[in-house]
């Protein structure tokens, strides 16, 4: 009678146990309680494998970089790699919230963008301050703080026809405060939105549409000139770090690459920690049968909220590392389409596995820049020349359909099969 209500929302047993990688299931209570507690890493060898590979990759890139002297990899390519690491980090967040907790959020790029905006405000403000102070140094009278502030306001907001510095820039002169805001603003937005959405038991596609609406609302809001964040001009010049104008970009790009790698490592560890053990068990339970978890006495809404907010914060941190490497952020970055692409990466990589998300994000985003950057050779069909800059999206769209249909486990699924066979 009530069976229809408890149909698994998620295609039943098709998803893997997903213990933060290919590790054997080990949560719960050790048999007889006699087994000595092993360190976390030892219980999750895949985490170790990943960290070692990431370290090796970082080292390799460092050695080949311009900053090191060999200059086999250009600075712009290092930036691309650094950005890719950030995308891998947000993909992990997406995997946590979707692959593990079953919330197909189409809004995580909004948090990513907000993180970028928060750090971008400091970068832009301080850099403009430097420029303004320099130019005012030659004035007959030394400038007053008010004059400096006015000049900064004109410099930053002249492009949207303003000169006043909006109230939301109140903390923009403090790096510490803006770093805190990177976490606080997206975190609070996620908490408020999540609380509203989960409280009213919006699930499934409804929830996806709602998150998409949130993203759209945010990006439309930021597109306005009076949003206080320079409308569609966005924030620019973010690659210049205030106070470090003498340091060449090749070095700065290396620092950001390392920081991204470090953040990714921590993100991976955190995700592995969260998804293993009982918490992981509960959120996977929520993904597969939310009502059942509720009847076990778990407050499903609270769990969803924790996961949603936590992943929003991870996404924001990824964004705060990404945009200084990209140099510019504007509201188009937050458009709903970006968050959908994020879901595409995770699906192609294989959701429900943390490394799957990393593989998907790295693979698809690098492939995408290869194809759209004109790196891929055109195919001459005789009557028509396939130019990949035009046809890449078609290929991506179709391959996405094929992955969904034929390999719902994504690349990670193939990977698992190989590991199991060997």
């Amino acid at each position, binding site marked *: 009678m009530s069976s229809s209500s408890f149909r698994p929302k998620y295609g039943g047993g098709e998803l893997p146990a997903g213990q933060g990688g290919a590790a054997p299931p080990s949560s719960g209570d050790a048999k007889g309680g006699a087994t000595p507690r092993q360190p976390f890493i030892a219980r999750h060898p895949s985490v170790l494998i990943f960290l070692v590979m990431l370290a090796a990759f970082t080292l390799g890139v460092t050695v080949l970089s311009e900053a090191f002297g060999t200059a086999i990899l250009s600075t712009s390519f290092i930036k691309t790699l650094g950005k890719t690491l950030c995308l891998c980090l947000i993909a992990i967040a997406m995997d946590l919230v979707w692959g593990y907790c079953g919330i197909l959020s189409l809004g995580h790029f909004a948090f990513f963008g907000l993180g970028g905006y928060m750090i971008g405000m400091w970068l832009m403000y301080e850099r403009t301050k430097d420029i303004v102070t320099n130019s005012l140094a030659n004035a007959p009278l030394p400038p007053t703080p008010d004059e400096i502030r006015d000049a900064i306001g004109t410099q930053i907001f002249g492009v949207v026809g303003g000169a006043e510095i909006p109230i939301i820039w109140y903390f923009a002169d403090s790096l510490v405060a803006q770093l805190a805001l990177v976490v606080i603003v997206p975190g609070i937005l996620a908490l408020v939105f999540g609380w509203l959405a989960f409280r*009213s038991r919006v699930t499934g596609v409804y929830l996806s549409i709602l998150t998409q609406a949130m993203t759209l609302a945010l990006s439309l*809001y930021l597109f306005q000139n009076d949003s206080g964040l320079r409308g569609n001009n966005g924030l620019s010049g973010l690659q210049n770090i205030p106070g470090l104008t003498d340091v060449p970009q090749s070095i700065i790009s290396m620092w950001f690459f390392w920081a991204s790698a470090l953040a990714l490592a921590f993100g991976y560890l955190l995700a592995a920690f969260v998804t293993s053990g009982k918490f992981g068990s509960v959120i996977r339970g929520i993904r597969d049968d939310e009502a059942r978890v509720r009847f076990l006495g778990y407050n499903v809404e609270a769990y969803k909220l924790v996961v949603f907010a936590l992943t929003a914060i991870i996404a924001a941190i990824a964004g705060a590392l990404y945009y200084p490497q990209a140099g510019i952020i504007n509201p188009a970055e937050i458009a709903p389409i970006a968050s959908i692409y994020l879901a595409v990466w995770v699906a192609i990589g294989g959701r429900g596995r943390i490394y799957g998300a990393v593989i998907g994000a790295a693979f698809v985003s690098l492939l995408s820049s290869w194809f759209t950057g004109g790196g891929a050779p055109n195919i001459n069909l005789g009557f028509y020349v396939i130019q990949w800059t035009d046809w890449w999206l078609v290929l991506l769209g179709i391959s996405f359909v094929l992955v969904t249909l034929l390999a719902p486990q994504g690349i990670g699924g193939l990977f698992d099969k190989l590991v199991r066979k060997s």
Partner: protein
Amino acid sequence: MMFRVLAVLWLALCGSFVQALSLQEVLQANQAAVEKASRKTVDAVLSDLVTAAAPGTQTFIEKWADRDVWMRKEDKLFFFVETDDKKTYTLLDIETGAPISEAQKRDLKQLKPNSGVRSVLASYLVQFKLMDPEPRRRAQALQSIERDPDESHYAPLKASIEAEDYPALKERKERLVRLLAIRFEPDEATRIAAIESFRGNLSVEARAALNPIVETQTVFGVPENANIARILRYDQGDIDQTTALRLASAAGAIMPQPSLPERKAALEANIVDGVVGGVPLHQLDRQAARDAAYEALAKAGAVPDWQAAQSEQDALAEMEFAVVYTEPSAAVTEAAEATLASINQSVGLYQALDLGLDALSLASIFFLAAIGLAITFGVMGVINMAHGEFIMMGAYTGYVVQLFVPNYTASLLIALPLAFAVTFGAGVAMERLVIRWLYDRPLETLLATFGISIALQQIAKNIFGTQARPLTAPGWLDGAWVMNDIVSISYIRIAIFVLGVVFFCLLLFILKRTRLGLEVRAVTQNPRMASSMGINPDRINMLTFGIGSGIAGIAGVAIGLYAKVTSEMGSDYIVQSFMTVVVGGVGNIWGTLLGAGLIGSLQKGIEWLNPSNTLAAQTYMILFIILFIQFRPRGIIALKGRAAGD
């Protein structure tokens, strides 16, 4: 005097005067007055001209006013001229325009009436035109007065009413007289009556005539004998500091203070060996230090005196300012204000109506865009992210048809069913190839259809390019249905509304009255039970999906008619369509209707509150919807009971 002339004019036109003097003869009789016309003498000349009513009089007055009349010095006759080289002139007869002879420039004198004379001439011309025997010409004259009313038109216009035998023109003249009376009538009572006759009138002209009367300016102090609208006090916050300062200092009531930039410039000008007013330069990065330096300079008399801002405030506090009407008569301004208030009230009323119509047409677009989505979502629980691209496909189908069929009406008639067929086919293909494998995985359907959406969008971009393509509406859909100056709605929007209504009724009929509808409803409510009763859910799913997509195609043609056709047009509508479905509730046409109505009117309403910013309107609308979901998570019309299956 003017009226005397007009009365004569009237008689002349009636033809009761028969005296065959030629134009030249009349002019020669007043030769001196014509040659050296002045404001005093010209009336007599004109009076004679009118009395004579010789042919060509009107043309002559026109040319005279335009300084195109020349006099031959030897016989003092008047001619029009033509010239090729500015030396030799061909003289033309003033009655017939026929060439008479040639003359040298030095033998001729050009008549140059001064501006006073010219304005008298112009007002006579108005009389001529307004009383022209040809009604069409009279209408033209009226039109030119409407376009650019002038005081000189008022009297002739008023005088011409009585003789007007065309009711339509008479009405128009009367209305125009009232409009002119608002501005030019010297008698106050008549003027007020004219003003009040426009109560509740919506025309732009009425407002244009009334607004100058209530024009005001703000002055310092309260002048006596002025028509004062209201009194402002600075300490009541009625007037801002900058304006108050400007007015008060202009009136000499307050000493103008040097502004901040002025003081800074003064400081800069008085730097002596790195010290200003006794303060070292490097300390001047604080406003307080700068103020001290300036005061020191002022004490030394090097710069204008300056008191701190507080004293300005104190001085202003006691001051009164007045908003004064430029129109001196209080009765007139009062009547104008009252009339304008009543006009604004009706304007508001009609604006609300216009807004309502706007909302309705937006709602019908949303309804058309969303209904296909609602059907597939309701029946199959499938969100089709490529729905927007089906809309786009429909629009491009319309565009391609127009390439082959140049007749817009015919092409539209072909495009509508063809768009349905194309998108129906695409929908069925998609259902067969992709969606049916994913029925138990709704989230993955969402993603797979999204993949299709990006591929379709890019393919359209590759085929049709990125620039917008036109989908031209047939001529009979051009233009708008105009109710008055405020309410108007374009025929295309009416057509879309009709299309929306047609589809609503059609779908309602199919669902409630046909076998297919019965089966669809059965599958919606309980697919397993339906299939055990011999309904083939596969076929139903395929058909529903096809129909839903087909309607999207038709919506695409409709939307393409008033918006541009681009490869991205689908994504412009998809989120609104989702909102419509979510707000309306799934699986119910009425729900979609209500959802579209709510979202359409909401969007228009917010745009009305904040007209400059449509982006903000959309933002707030989405926020509203997120909150709305809090209270009705299943939409306006929700399935109840256990069938809803949370």
